[in-house]
């Protein structure tokens, strides 16, 4: 099998599919030309991610990593959500094939982009270094 059972489970039964209306933070990364786009919307109450949803255009691992990433940040303080790494998503999914690692990077960046949007909308100060390289090219550079 190309994918672990965990990946297939999150691909077949993705958690948190959809879009939160009037979301507090919206992050969209990737581009259609590369074949994957992820969009994550967050509801944030008192600095805690109370809900997270995603929509994804992409392969099986792109859908599975989006699903897992939203699961991992739900209920966490925003600062902790920001610390979500692609490695953590890969580990939670019991691994990804080497050429699919960029999908997990995209998931990490989608979460970061959504938090950045939340910070920007609420005029919360942050270190811009936290958000460098939120684009498709940089994700593929991680391959």
């Amino acid at each position, binding site marked *: 099998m190309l994918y672990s059972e965990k990946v297939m489970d999150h691909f077949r039964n993705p958690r948190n599919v959809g879009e939160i209306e009037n979301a507090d933070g919206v992050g969209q990364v990737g581009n259609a030309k590369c074949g994957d786009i992820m969009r994550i919307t967050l509801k944030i109450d008192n600095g805690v991610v109370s809900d997270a949803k995603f929509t994804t255009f992409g392969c*099986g691992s792109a859908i599975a990593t989006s699903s897992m990433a939203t699961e991992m940040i739900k209920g966490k303080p925003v600062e902790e959500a920001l610390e979500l790494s692609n490695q953590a998503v890969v580990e939670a999914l019991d691994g990804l094939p080497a050429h699919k690692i960029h999908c997990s990077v995209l998931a990490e960046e989608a979460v970061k982009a959504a938090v950045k949007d939340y910070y920007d909308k609420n005029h919360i100060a942050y270190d811009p270094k936290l958000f460098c390289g939120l684009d498709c090219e940089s994700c593929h550079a991680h391959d």
Partner: protein
Amino acid sequence: MIYLDNAATTKTSLAARQAMLDCMEQFWGNPSSLHTPGQRAAEALAVAREKVAACIGASPREIYFTSGGSEADNQAILSAALLGKKKGKTHLISTAIEHHAVLHTLARLEREGFSVTLLPVDESGIVKVSDVAAAIREDTALVSVMFANNEIGTIQPVAEIGALCRERKIPFHTDAVQAAGHLPIDVVSQNIDMLSLSGHKFHGPRGVGVLYVRKGLPLLNLIEGGAQERGKRAGTENLPAIAGMAAALQEACAHLEENAQKERVLRDRLIEGLSRIPHSALNGDRNCRLPGNVNFCFEGIEGESLLLLLDDKGIAASSGSACTSGSLDPSHVLLAIGRPHEVAHGSLRLTLSEETTREEIDQAVRAVTEVVERLRGMSPVWDELQKGVRPYVIQ
């Protein structure tokens, strides 16, 4: 499982399996040996060669057995290039939609100093004979144009290109891996100098193929070490595979028109069914295509997830998306017919065999319709298309 990936490989036929078993039980000798077991194997090899030759209108001496279609393509191109070079001819012509066995061999020759012209195709995937004529130069050593495309199934004007090359005295090779056993092939009337085919695309075994080379045309060998295949391909012959391939090809050619007609009816039913999915488009020519080939693009979704969900529903298919090719770029064939990247990622190839049933086709249409809808439901691209943020590529 509904198997709709017959362009990737086919199930071996009973005739092929029986021929292979017969070889392993009775003709296990080395055809190069002078003793009786060897000579019995040599006879079986000769019979297989005659069968293959008869299927494509060639004579047995023009048939060289190889390890498959890729080796045959490599040998035809490398041989023509190196022989051409001796006469100062270092230009090679082919098309943008060839199989990688052809394209990568040409790229290698290009790195070694040959110049290569890859002709474009029109939006239905067909190369123009006039483009071939215009590309021919004084130093052209070879023209190689595939008989029918492996992804989108379009059939090329091989006989016309062959006639042009014959007139201009340029060797003409065709990769007929997808055509053999499915379309009528006659190397004489179609003016073909070299032709590659592969055993496992018509219910024969894999690991075996054929390179046909017209009598009188010189051929260089790639593999040294013995006098097999008249010195053009060393190595003890894989007789069970060769006999299995010959039996399968003979059977396929004996029922060619009947099978093709059966497949065409179901192919058209499948095309009709999938066309009802909004913002979908058939890739390749509507009529001038392999009897068993259907290839679609669906806007707003990606091919790998489509394949995985179809597999869950018991349907085996393939895609030209980057994720399934293991690279970042989607199929070069879909790009060559003008599909933009984002649409080429959402492609689906369904390839039939004569055993495919109407019920299977109807089930496939239902499954694809459901899966496309489901994936679009979670796709931000589809959302943007529907909201008008992003323009539809496929109307």
